Structures are given as structure tokens and as C-alpha cells.
């Protein structure tokens, strides 16, 4: 081996090495440096997502499908189902040997039955891993209150909250707002009511001609209980249940002072409500407000888009405010919302890709598009602070603020939720039609709910 040969060999070796390194370097995606997020990590994989039908949640995804598929290489397979069959399908899939869906859409009321049963993948490791989550995901952007409903769950205690994440809030949240006609309030010289006493007085003062001071859902409809009664109930400081299902002491509090008072207030406000209010479902009440016949109405924020929309007869006169409450320490209304989750019975690869897609459809950019185009309620605080969003949809800040003061329905963690809501909604409706007085109605609801809880094994007696 001469010196020259050695030099020549080492140059050749060095060149070869350089070529080799650059060749390898070129075929590896630039962001593959260890610990960084790689959007193309699931290129070529299919992710099957099931969303609820009828809430417009799938629309944003349909719009952005091509864009997301281009950015991640994922083949998105979207299925939508009505809320009933969706729940059924999810329950089946979570218990099958392997789920047919990689991402499932879970309503708050079903979190306990899914996360609580250990059927969902724990997402805490995913969200904390910078290799799996985009740097700009900003998980802190989700309000704590919402995360303690469609987010964190404690399977051992069977309660919301804790430090195990099972869902990411999405695609829409749900809150209750007070919609009112600022022109009518100004003309009568009335301030936006802060307490429920103020509200009643305002309703009385605002009723004149064919305008009713207040509207509500008075029919045999879940919203009568979930919005009108519940807002007043928690606004009086009411606590829905005592005890816990864990030690079979879960008991309803429907005969408490606050419960009866809340119903009584609804009865007392009947003279200042539209004549047909006891047959108003959610739609009929909105029709009345839109026709200009109502001055104030606490309702789901989902109608804000329609009321503020370009076609709305009240678009220039409607405004939103937080729902009244009798004391600073009380809540204002019910917490609604859905979450996206990943079934536990999937291969790890599916879960990783499901998470990747989830980060894309719960991102700031995606939510902004969804909210601005379809007026669904946002989950992120930043959406509520975005000037563009506020300019187009002035009610958004109030909607997101309402999430903070909302109260999770205390029967949301048992499977008999809808049965108990049904007991209350029927009695509320009967009391409003004058068939019963408030005390009797709530006593009936109490008896009915107790029976349901006993049959369900949550109350031992």
C-alpha cells in the first residue's frame, strides 16, 4: 500500500461516503430529525372516522378532506350516523375484537360508559409526545371546564376530571346563551338581567302588544329540562344529585328548594311568554324569536348562526349575553359537547394514525374554518379571540365564555341519563300546562328518578 494509493482510496471512500450520506439524507423526510412531528408518518394508511349526523360536524371535514389527504397522505374514510345508531355502533365496536372505526365521536353523556369502561385509548402519552403532536397544536387552548367533561376521566372513581385524557373536545361544543333584542330592551330602558329575579321583572316589563317578554321550550321536549329548567336550577345554586354511584348512594335532589323554585319561576313567567309556549319545541321557540315576537330567550348557542345570519329578520337587533344567575358562585347553564376518541381495541399503528388525523381536525385552523363556515360552536379559546371570527360571528366570545361557567349534568355518568331527563321533562311540561303544581311535579319526578336509579343499581335502599 503506497501513500498515494492510500490517499486515493481514502478520497474514494470519502466521496462514496459523502454520496451515500447525501443519498440517504435525501430520501428521508426533512422533519424526521428525532423527536419532531412528521405529518407524513401515516402516508398511505386509511383512517376510518365515525361522526354524528345532523350537527354539520362532517361538513368541515368534507371541505378539508382533500387538503388533509394531501398534507398527510392519509386516506380518510368518513361515516356519519344519526345519534342513536352512532351510540349503538360505537358501543358494539368498542367491545368487538377489533373496532371498525379508528376515531369515534362520543357525546358527553356517553363518556362514562366508554372511557369509564376502559374502552378508549388513553391519549395523555400522545398529546405530550412532540413526535406525535404538531408543535402548534396548543392543547392549553381548550378550556379547562370542557376538558373536564369531554376530555379527562377517572375510570376508577367513575367521575369526570382527573389526569387521564381520553378525548379531545370536538367537533362542536355546546353552551347556552341568553339571546335578547337590544332594541326592545333599550326602548324600555331595561338592563340585561343578571339574576333570575331581574329576568322575571324584565320579562314583565317587556311584554306588550304581540311581543312576549320571554320565551322557553315548554313542550314535552328535552330542552325544556336541559336548558330552561336546568339553567334556572343551577343559577339558584341547585345541586342535581347527592351521593355517588360507586357506593350506591346516588340520589336525585328534585324536591330541593332550588328545584321547585326553578320550575315555579317557569310557571310564573307564563303570562309573559307566547300564548302557545307549552307546545314550543326548540324549533317553534326559534321561529317565534325570529318573527320578532320575543324579547329574551335562553337557548342553545347553535341557533346563533341562524339568528345573526344575513337572512335573519332580527340580525341587527339580536344580541347575546351570559345566562343569568343568582350569585357569582353559581353556574349558568348546562355543559354540552362532544369529544373525539380512539378505541383501545386497535393495533398501535391504527391508533397512531388516528391520533395524527385527530390533531388535524381539532387544530386551530380547522376549527376556524368549521366555525366560520357552518356556525358550529367552537372548543378553543383562541377561536373566540380571533378578530376575523368575532367580526363575522359576534356571539362567539360569549359562547366560549359560557363554557367556563357551565355545569356538567350530574347524571351524565350513568347509562340512565335520558330516562331521568325524560322524567323531568314530562313533569315540567305537565306543570306548565297547569295539570300539576310545581311541588307535585317535582315530587313525581323525584319518585320516578329514584325508581330508575334503584333499578339501575346506583341507589341501594
Amino acid at each position, binding site marked *: 500500500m503506497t501513500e498515494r494509493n492510500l490517499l486515493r482510496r481514502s478520497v474514494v471512500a470519502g466521496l462514496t461516503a459523502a454520496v451515500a450520506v447525501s443519498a440517504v439524507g435525501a430520501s428521508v423526510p426533512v422533519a424526521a430529525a428525532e423527536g419532531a412531528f412528521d405529518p407524513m408518518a401515516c402516508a398511505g394508511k386509511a383512517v376510518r372516522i365515525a361522526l354524528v349526523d345532523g350537527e354539520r360536524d362532517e361538513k368541515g371535514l368534507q371541505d378539508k378532506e382533500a387538503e388533509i389527504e394531501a398534507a398527510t397522505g392519509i386516506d380518510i374514510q368518513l361515516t356519519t350516523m344519526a345519534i342513536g345508531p352512532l351510540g*349503538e355502533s360505537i358501543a358494539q365496536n368498542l367491545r368487538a375484537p377489533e373496532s371498525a372505526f379508528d376515531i369515534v365521536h362520543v357525546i358527553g353523556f*356517553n363518556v362514562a360508559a366508554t372511557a369509564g369502561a376502559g374502552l378508549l385509548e388513553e391519549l395523555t402519552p400522545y398529546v405530550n409526545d412532540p413526535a406525535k403532536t404538531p408543535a402548534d397544536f396548543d392543547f392549553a387552548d381548550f378550556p379547562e371546564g370542557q376538558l373536564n367533561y369531554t376530555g379527562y376521566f377517572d375510570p376508577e372513581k367513575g367521575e369526570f376530571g382527573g389526569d387521564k385524557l381520553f378525548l379531545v373536545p370536538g367537533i362542536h361544543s355546546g353552551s347556552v346563551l341568553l339571546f335578547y333584542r337590544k332594541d326592545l330592551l333599550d326602548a324600555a330602558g331595561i338592563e340585561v338581567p343578571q339574576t333570575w329575579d331581574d329576568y322575571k321583572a324584565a320579562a314583565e316589563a317587556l311584554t306588550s302588544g304581540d311581543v312576549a317578554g320571554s320565551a322557553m321550550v315548554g313542550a314535552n321536549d328535552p330542552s325544556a329540562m336541559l336548558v330552561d329548567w336546568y339553567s334556572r336550577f343551577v343559577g339558584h345554586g341547585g345541586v342535581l344529585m347527592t351521593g355517588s354511584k360507586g357506593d350506591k348512594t346516588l340520589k336525585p335532589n328534585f324536591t330541593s328548594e332550588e328545584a321547585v323554585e326553578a320550575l315555579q319561576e317557569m310557571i310564573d313567567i307564563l303570562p309573559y311568554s307566547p300564548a302557545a309556549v307549552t307546545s314550543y319545541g326548540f324549533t317553534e321557540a326559534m321561529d317565534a324569536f325570529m318573527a320578532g315576537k320575543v324579547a329574551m330567550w335562553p337557548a342553545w348557542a347553535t341557533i346563533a348562526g341562524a339568528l345573526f345570519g344575513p337572512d335573519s329578520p332580527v340580525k341587527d337587533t339580536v344580541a347575546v349575553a351570559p345566562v343569568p344567575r343568582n350569585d357569582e358562585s353559581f353556574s349558568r347553564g348546562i355543559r354540552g359537547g362532544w369529544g373525539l376518541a380512539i378505541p383501545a381495541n386497535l393495533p398501535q399503528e391504527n391508533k397512531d394514525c388516528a391520533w395524527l388525523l385527530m390533531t388535524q381536525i381539532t387544530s386551530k385552523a380547522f376549527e376556524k374554518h368549521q366555525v366560520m363556515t357552518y356556525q358550529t360552536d367552537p372548543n378553543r379559546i383562541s377561536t373566540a379571540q380571533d378578530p376575523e371570527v368575532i367580526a363575522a360571528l359576534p356571539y362567539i366570545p360569549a359562547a366560549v365564555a359560557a363554557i367556563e361557567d357551565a355545569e356538567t349534568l350530574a347524571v351524565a355518568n350513568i347509562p340512565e341519563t335520558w330516562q331521568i331527563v325524560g322524567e323531568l321533562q*314530562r313533569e315540567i311540561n305537565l306543570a306548565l*300546562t297547569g295539570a300539576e303544581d310545581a311541588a307535585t311535579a317535582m315530587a313525581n319526578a323525584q319518585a320516578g328518578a329514584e325508581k330508575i336509579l334503584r333499578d339501575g343499581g346506583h341507589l341501594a335502599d
Partner: protein
Amino acid sequence: MTAATPTAGHPLHTRRDVLLLAGPTVLYLLVFSVFPLLYSLAISFFDWNPTTSSFDWVGLGNFTGLLTDPVFWQAAVNTAIFTSVSIAIQVVLGTVLALFFNLRLRGAWFVRGVLILPMLLTPVVVGLMWRALLNPDWGMVNWLLGLFGLPQPLWTADPAVALATLVIVDSWQWTPFVMVIVFARLQALPQDVFEASAVDGANRRQTLLRITLPLLAPAIAFAAIFRAIDAFRAFDVVFGLTYGGPGRLTTTLSFYTWENGFSFQQYGYASALAYVMVIVATIAMSLLVRVVSIRREDAA
């Protein structure tokens, strides 16, 4: 009257024929109708909630639960009232309409075509349609009543009116069914009977009561039985218009079954309810059929 004739072959042929002719149908029904029914019966002995995946044997627990469930009894009463009043109205009105159309007025075929529409409509559409028509604020029905100074009831919210509202909507949808069947039978009646009675000097009322109606009886009975089965199971009107309310005033057995199954996710209880419905309906049906065949024997 036996099927065997001198050259039709021995009974063995007949049995094979029956097997080949009716076999596929019976087999199909066994697999896709009877088996699900048995499965459903099996479910009714369990307490099955799919969302919590609880699946416990309760034996007759669901059935005894039904007997002590006040809502079940109320639903039974509601269903009985709804079914009997609906059938009565539909049979009478349908027959009257059929007789009316028998007058063969010009252009009547078009009106008949319009009247048939309701029974062809999607139940969801019917429900929404009537919810819109009966809307207390902007619905056309109350607006019209207002024009004539008549009272404008809260059709779905007033306890006194709610069940009647369902009867009205159901009758709007299904009276044409009775009308069609009776009308068709009217066209098929042999004319010689009428000619003979005309010769005998019978007036119109006599003809109607003594001849036409008895001859129509089988068709009317067919329509009545058919309507009985379906009105008993009626669900869509309740779901679309009143959701079982106010209170439990319009909760029918069918609605309560659905509510337990789909809303409360108590499949065992819902299956038990469904089975009770089937048993009651079968008993009622066989009684009805017996009454009808006795009548027909009288008429014949």
C-alpha cells in the same frame, strides 16, 4: 274436498309438491322472520344494555316489571283507545267515500289519486308536514280556524286534544286505504242483484243497507283487520308529533317499546314489551277473525 284426483298421483306427490312450492318461502321466513323473533324472545329474558354491556339473566323479570309498570298500563289504554277510534273513523269514512266515488262523477279519478297520496308518504315527512300545518303560531290550520273565528287549540300540547290529534292525522293518512279496497270491491259487485232489487221497487236507502253493505262486508272486514294490525303498531305519528306527551297521554305501546329500546337502551325490557304486544294482537286478531267469519256465514 281433497286434492287427490284419480290421476294426480298419490299423497307422496302432493307432499313433494307442497315442499317445492311452499318450501322456499317457509324456509326464508324461518330464517329471516322467525329466528329474529325467537332471538328477540330470548333477549326479553335478559337485562341487556349495550352501552354498558350489561347482560344479566332475569328470567320473567322483565315481564313482571311490565305488569307493575304504570306507564305500560297507560300505554295499553292509550293504544286501545287510539286503535279503536281510528279504525272506527277510517272504516266508516272510507266506506262513505267509496260509495261516494261510486257515483262516478267526472274528474273524480283525479281526486281519488290525490286522496291516495297520504298513505304513500314517508312517515317522517308526514310527521313534519303536520307539525308545520298544526304549528300554533304560523300553521295554516290554526290560521284558517282563526279566520272563521273558531278556537285554535294547541294540537299537540293540550292534554284534552293531543290523542285526538294523532287520531286525526292517522285517519288522514289511512282512510284512503279503506276507501280504495271498498271502492274496488264495489266495482266488482255483480250487477244482477241490484237490477233485481230495482225491479222489486227498493229505494236507495234500502238498497244500500240491505244489499250493498252486506255484499261489501268482506272487503270492509279485510280493510278493518288490516288497519287494526297497523294502527296497533303505529309509531311514526307519535314520534313526529307528540313524543308520547303531554305527560304520558299519547304514549302508545309501540312508542314505549321504541323508547325503551332506542332511547333508554334497555333492549330486554323493550323485547318483553314487543312480545306482549304480539300476544295481545294475536288474541285480538283471532277473536276478530272469528267474529268476521261468523258474520260472513250469516250473510252467505
